[in-house]
């Protein structure tokens, strides 16, 4: 792809900017960090990291282990330690045992609890057996895992094992049934955060950047006053709101992918190192006690 297109895109996605969700207007708004400090106290603070692709050795990033380590170091150095870190998939590039060993070793450097879910790069050839052996939370069933922290209900979903005829991700009925059961006891006032690898909104269906049965998740989430869906897969920040549900995708720690439909195919974008560092990183999330959501992007350079 042409670099100009890519940079223009990064400008609108606003890496390095703090975004808050204005529930009244149904919009994400950029704010300066100074403004944010004056806002209400956070109820829950956590980090999303994604698409480390350990094992990738191509010009878009010859040292994905080094950039992943840099992200881990930056997370460990955050002034307010996150309650936990969620890795939203594609830990490895090709599901190889050596790649899993390496990413597990790197992740063991995190000082706070870790939750993971698989990307399609983590389940090649074995429907995720190796991934599950190494990273399964003890409560994961049908690919789903849920936990509570500071009054916030969190759920991670798997949507990379089966694909609809259209080439989109799929959650599958057994997991959707389990999600319905999991959410049923919650009051409408409980803030809910859902994690998935492939986005649960139509980011770009032609490249499979969508989930065929995501509408059923939206239906389950529609009664909640605060519902946030955080995903990976597309190696860039895109934000969307549907009703009261707020969607956001994350950058990779390895390399960016083209903006939706820019170029012929979703191949890694090769950038000079400085620009690549600015287009990769992790995100911290604060759910304030007044249910205000803050997303802060932390580029690696």
């Amino acid at each position, binding site marked *: 792809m042409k670099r100009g297109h890519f940079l223009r895109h990064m400008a609108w996605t606003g890496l390095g900017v703090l975004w808050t969700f204005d529930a009244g207007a149904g919009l994400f708004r950029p704010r300066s960090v100074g403004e944010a400090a004056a806002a209400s106290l956070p109820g829950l603070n956590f980090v999303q990291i994604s698409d480390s692709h350990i094992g990738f050795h*191509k010009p878009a990033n010859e040292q994905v282990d080094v950039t992943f380590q840099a992200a881990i170091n930056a997370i460990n150095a955050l002034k307010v330690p996150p309650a936990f870190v969620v890795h939203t998939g594609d830990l490895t*590039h*090709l*599901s*190889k045992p050596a790649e899993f060993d390496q990413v597990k070793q790197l992740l063991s450097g995190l000082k706070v609890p870790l939750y993971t879910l698989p990307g*399609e*790069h983590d*389940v*090649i*050839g074995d429907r995720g057996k190796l991934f599950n052996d190494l990273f399964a939370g003890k409560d994961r069933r049908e690919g789903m895992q849920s936990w509570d922290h500071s009054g916030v209900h969190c759920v991670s979903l798997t949507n990379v094992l089966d*694909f609809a005829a*259209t*080439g*989109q*991700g799929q959650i599958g009925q057994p997991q959707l049934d389990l999600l319905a059961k999991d959410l049923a006891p919650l009051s409408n006032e409980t803030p809910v955060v859902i994690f998935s690898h492939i986005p649960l909104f139509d980011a770009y269906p*032609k*490249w*499979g950047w969508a989930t065929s049965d995501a509408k059923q998740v939206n239906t389950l989430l529609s009664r909640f006053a605060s519902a946030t869906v955080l995903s990976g897969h597309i190696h860039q920040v895109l934000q969307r709101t549907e009703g009261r549900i707020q969607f956001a995708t994350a950058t990779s720690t390895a390399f960016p992918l083209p903006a939706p439909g820019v170029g*012929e*195919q*979703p*191949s*890694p974008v090769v950038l000079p190192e400085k620009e690549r560092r600015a287009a990769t990183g992790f995100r911290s999330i604060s759910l304030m006690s007044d249910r205000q959501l803050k997303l802060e992007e932390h580029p690696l350079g």
Partner: protein
Amino acid sequence: MVSSLKYLSNVFLSLGFLSLATATIPNGQAAQTLTSVNIDHFKFMPGVLQVHTGQTVNFFNKDGDPHTIASQDGSFESPALDTGDSWKHTFTKLGTYTYICTLHPFMQGNITVTGEKQ
């Protein structure tokens, strides 16, 4: 480019060898000809292919990105094929098989297996 030329010459060599071998089998077994599907620019080429039972298809990834081959009925699935990797599958049952790349599931191909070559 060099590696794909080398690859093509290997295919021609093995095709030549196999047809020679078939000719010497006295009891009329099916020809074990090798057919290729190339992967390039996020496409399987040819995307639609007809083979005979017992025929082996060699999938070769010429692309800069890794891909996989997985039938939608679950009957075959390759490991990850990175640039320059190949993987073979022998088709023994009649039918039409739709397959995708699990890394880029919008990539689809079709292989129809007909009766044994006479």
